């Protein structure tokens, strides 16, 4: 493959693009890719187009597409039948413990920002929050009036239905639960947006 490119620089760019797109969870803006690769957006675009064409020629099971303003890998639509079966049969049918804890924090502490949840959980929760949003269990309900204007999340009607609750007032009471100093601090710290390890 490297022989197709004039120099080592081009190969490196192509390889770095493949690496970045592989770990990305959302379409990646060519501008951002160009910045990361220290090259021009035009180079990124042409390189991505070349890659996409290559995958088509090689009849890969994945495709590289331009969608929602960026590039991303996805499964070849021709193979949807397999993916559908995988989603239906393969995935665990339950929320992970981590996801359930995240959902619980949103339920009991809403409206709450992503970084507040992350601070309490001690891990980055972006991926988990996205899953919860996609599943329609949580949604953005407001914006933090503070400087960052962080999105504040709350639970949805779907969430209440799934749990068989009429309203949030029917959530089991926490009783004499008093958050300890560390948790209180975590909520406060969350507003400052301290970077956290990613939840894995």
């Amino acid at each position: 493959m490297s022989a197709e490119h004039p120099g080592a620089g081009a190969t490196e760019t192509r390889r770095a693009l493949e690496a970045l797109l592989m770990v990305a969870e959302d379409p990646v803006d060519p501008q951002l890719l160009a910045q990361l690769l220290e090259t021009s957006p035009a180079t990124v675009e042409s390189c991505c187009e070349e890659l996409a064409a290559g995958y088509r020629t090689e009849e890969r099971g994945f495709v590289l597409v331009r969608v929602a303003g960026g590039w991303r890998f996805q499964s070849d639509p021709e193979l949807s039948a397999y993916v559908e079966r995988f989603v239906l049969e393969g995935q665990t049918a339950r929320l992970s413990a981590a996801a359930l804890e995240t959902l619980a924090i949103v339920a009991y502490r809403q409206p709450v920002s992503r970084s507040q949840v992350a601070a309490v959980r001690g891990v980055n929760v972006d991926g988990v929050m996205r899953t919860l949003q996609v599943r329609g269990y949580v949604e953005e309900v407001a914006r933090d009036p503070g400087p960052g204007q962080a999105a504040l999340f709350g639970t949805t009607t779907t969430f209440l239905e799934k749990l068989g609750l009429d309203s949030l007032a029917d959530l089991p009471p926490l009783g004499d639960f008093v958050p300890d100093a560390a948790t209180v601090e975590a909520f406060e710290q969350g507003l400052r947006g301290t970077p956290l390890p990613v939840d894995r």
Partner: protein
Amino acid sequence: MTYEVQTPVFEGPFDLLLHLILREELDLYEVSLSTIVDAYLAELDRLAGSEARLDLEVATEFLLIAATLIELKARRLLPAPEALDLDDELGLWEERDLLLGRLLECKTFKDAAVTLSAMEGVAGRSQPRRAGPEERFLALAPDLLAGVTPEALRAAFLRACTPRPVPRVEIAHLGAVRASVNDAVEELSRTLPGLGPTTFRRLTIGLSARLEVVVRFLALLELCKLGLVDLHQAQRFGDITVAWSASPDRFAAGDDARISVGVGRR
């Protein structure tokens, strides 16, 4: 990505011992007792002076290890008793083997941890793909909240907010030692000034329990460290002479907190 050994911050008594034995490449018996006690007290000072809370378990474990070492060593330094107590001797060997076993085990896992950390460093150079199925497939997935009850949600919330457990303080088995060292320091501080030069043997006469002897030894070391007592041993296995070196009013004017032994400090 290299694993950094945090010295001289010791995680526990084994850390301290391994540090003393391995890094200094000293054998246990060449480590002077005062080095051990100094390191022990320094560690307690560090804990007391830092944000970190003094963990009583750590402190007592240090004391236990130090006492065992001192006892092992004292056995060699003190004149052999006329009638050798075979049970005591065997007990000592058992303790020694136990200590050896624990040190070796600790060293083993320390080295394993370095390798695991290196493996994590290598593996961490790759990031996994975790994008998941495209949005159009997500609607197909089964209900992720199936079987989740409101109570389970409550439990999950409490789990997420659980404070770090407060270290359990188990001092029952060491309470006597803790009190005794303090007591012994006080008692010796009262009696020694009026006693004139004496010997460790005389000071421990009538003490039947090994523990009491060790405690008295620790107390003397503490007093020595504070410059209140002079210890001298003319020859190997000879009597240790003990002499009060401070003027009587110095102790009276001294800071009680400084006199009390580390474990009691908070």
